[in-house]
């Protein structure tokens, strides 16, 4: 799998994702600058964590206008795999690729800690090798990770099996403990926890590997 890691001004987990793919998974990742109109020949897109545009206005609200996002939308519409992590999730939501919004954490503070997540579906290219009900321990590091959507949207997400991960012990007030969701086509995943931070035994856990390994195994052949 060749992954493109999009770099927005203010992205700061871009290198971590790049390192996890290239060094820990022995795949191939390259950076894509935010004003690039095309994605090149990548098989998957990673929107990394960080503070794109300083989180000014609203997290992800400015990044969605970056030229590269038009290419990301097209790529997703064609069935390409797109994973947005943390700020990447916020950007996907702002860009309308995923429903809902991410609000300030319940206690209004930035939280960095390890959380337990239950994998809610194995029916996705991101979780097929992880397996339903598998508990993963991944770190979160965000100030605005409280997932919010109206009841109708939440019901729909659940009815369509599009909740990918739920917190075991909700750290931020997210509706229905949601930590990550899929789009209707199941090829776009947004999640607040950071799988790229736990792909190396030296980091104390390798619980993040399964998500990327699933992506490696499920890379669709796209007509380019």
């Amino acid at each position, binding site marked *: 799998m060749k992954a493109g890691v999009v770099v927005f*001004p*203010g992205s*700061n*987990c871009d*290198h*971590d994702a790049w*390192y*996890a793919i290239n060094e820990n998974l022995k795949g191939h990742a390259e950076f894509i600058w935010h004003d690039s109109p095309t994605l090149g020949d990548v098989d998957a897109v990673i929107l990394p*964590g*960080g*503070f794109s*545009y*300083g*989180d*000014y206005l609203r997290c992800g609200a400015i990044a969605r206008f970056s030229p590269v996002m038009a290419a990301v939308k097209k790529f997703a519409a064609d069935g390409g795999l797109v994973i947005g992590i943390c700020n990447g999730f916020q950007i996907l939501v702002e860009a309308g690729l995923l429903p809902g919004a991410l609000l300030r954490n319940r206690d209004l*503070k*930035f*939280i*960095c*800690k390890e959380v337990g997540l239950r994998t809610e579906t194995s029916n996705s290219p991101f979780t097929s090798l992880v397996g339903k009900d598998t508990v993963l321990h991944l*770190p979160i*590091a965000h*100030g605005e990770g409280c997932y919010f959507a109206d009841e109708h949207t939440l019901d729909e997400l659940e009815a369509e099996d599009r909740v990918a991960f739920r917190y075991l012990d909700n750290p931020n007030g997210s509706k229905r403990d949601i930590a990550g969701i899929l789009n209707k086509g199941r090829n776009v995943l947004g999640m607040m926890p*950071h799988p*790229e*931070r736990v792909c*190396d035994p*030296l*980091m104390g856990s390798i619980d993040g590997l399964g998500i990327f390994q699933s992506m490696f195994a499920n890379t669709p052949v796209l007509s380019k």
Partner: protein
Amino acid sequence: MKITPELIKLHQLTQGEYDKIVSLLGREPSYTELGVFSVMWSEHCSYKSSKIHLRKLPNEGKYVVQGPGENAGVIGIGGDWVVAFKIESHNHPSYIEPFQGAATGVGGILRDIFTMGARPIAVLDSLRFGEPSSKNMHILSGVVSGIAHYGNCFGVPTVGGECKFDDSYAGNPLVNVFALGVCKKDEIFYAKASGIGNPVIYVGAKTGRDGINGAVMASAEFGADAMQKRPNVQVGDPFMEKLLLEACIEAMKTGAIVAIQDMGAAGLTSSSCEMGSRGGVGIDIDLDKVPQREKGMTAYEMLLSESQERMLLVAEKGREEEVFQVFRKWGLDAVTIGVVTDDGNLRIRHQGRIEAEIPNPALADEAPKYNRPYDAAPYRKFPMEAPAEIAEPADYNSALLKMVGSPDLCSKRWIWEQYDYQVRTNTLAGPGSDAAVVRVKGTDTSIAMSLDGNGRYCALDPREGTKLMVAECCRNLATTGAMPVAATNNLNFGNPERPEIMAQLVESVEGMAEACRHFDTPITGGNVSLYNETLGEAILPTPVLGIVGLMKTAAPVPSTFRREGASVVMLGGMGKTDATRFGSTQYAKTLLGQTWGLPPVLDMDYEKRVHDAMRALAAEGLAESAHDLSDGGLAVAVAEACYGGVGATLTIPSEGRADFALFHEGPSRIVVSTGSPERVLEIASQHGVEAFVIGVTMKARLQIGNGMSSWIDIPVADLSNRFESALPNRIHNTHA
């Protein structure tokens, strides 16, 4: 404008200093020039009270690539890799405006690191506040949010630090921030201008009126009007700083940059005259070209502005466009505002007039140096005599609970969970560990770091207290298996014009010099923060040391017990105390509400042998866990080792007082859990270090006695609940 004695006083210059300015210039200065001198000769920028004593500190060693005098110190870490690191204070601004004061403190030290060409990979901070009260907790909350805001957005992990409380810091909190960055040796950049005719380029944020005269503010004690100084505090923009970092590192790779320096204290003034002075050249600047945020700024305001996120660089003539291109890519201003000249002067033009013309060395190197009187005994607020009777507690379980829940010793999780301590995926040991450890990707080396300060010890004996602090810092590193190799210091003291305060400073620096020589940790740079007084009340003398060590990249030795059934070894022995020494302990402060006497006795040779023994244990993989004894002594250290959930049952060979045995703070001790106690004792003995097995780890309970009486018998969960809940409770209760 006519220079009057009032104007001179307003700039915190003495008449003698003014006379020196006149003699250096050969004429009266202009108003603008007076402003320029006042910041460059301020205590904050010139170190005029401390410089002659700082020379006593060791600053050379086999790892040192760059010692004091540059933006940061640099050491080699093996191969062609180096790390740049320094500590800096932002004490005064953090009292006046906690959030922005702390945030810009982080911003300033990060620029010091990446201006050297090194990418920041770790931040640690040392904080001091008044004892928990509504006001002090408000300051703490603001400072923590400010550090989190800046570091998290910038993308540097805050991997450790310390936070302690004493009422002497109530009107003068301490915010000392340490940062460390990494690069290749041939990628280091220096702030030394050269090449006559080369362009001087301004990059980054626009200049506004914020922070004017901040360096002068940082060089005076506070009176009742402290809050009126809020306009002197700068406002930080970490997003801008992140762009500046990426753009600078990228621009450096073009090869077109000759020299670079950040605009920190005294902004444009200090960056230009210091770069010029180091290179022995002149700098000619046209202020009309400086990107400005506000209209109608005077030369005085632009020169003294401390607007954040700005850099000044000298590029190779003819290659400006290569530099501009990079900054354009990152959406940043980059403008040629001046030129390097051969006359050695800082020349400032504004609206067609020359507003200042001063020889660079006069500003950067000719600042007055004072040998301020220190012929008094160091100021001492605590008695020497122990109280007639030191009452023993009725119940040691509740005494220990009180200790682990005390402001100084309780968990600081509420603080560090607000920091991203993992970004860049290098953190092998983060907050809550004895030392923070980050790996350096692309090498097999990791960097261990510890920040330490102990105002209580230093208040009782500045020399011995400082030595103890250096020893503890090195012990923290040894505990994780690392070898300390260099250090940076932040000297926080009161008003140096008072001989009894100056005596504290001198004693402390001399103690630090002796200890740093002993432990082979040369000081490669740092910061001095004086005038930490409010309404005449000085802070406890608080030197803070940041030690950097090296280890092979591997999982560091953890500080908590791993499993039931492991032997617990006291490496270093039981240590010693007496009624006088016991007065310096956290126990005396917390349980008895008093401080007296002297700090513990330190044998530096023995201490070093303990470290060597510990590293040998780590190297052989014998230490399943290790945790050093410091504040709170044995009982607190063992309680802390239990917070992973595994307890221990221990028998202390002590026939003396239980309170002394449990809580005295004799140094040179580490509690180690191991599956191979015989081998551990053998290694200890080879190093001439006392060690014995004091018990065994067990399930979920901590028991300590001396074989005759049981002193402590308590569920681990009770200890860890108190430890974890103490700080959040205090914050929420005082806010209610």
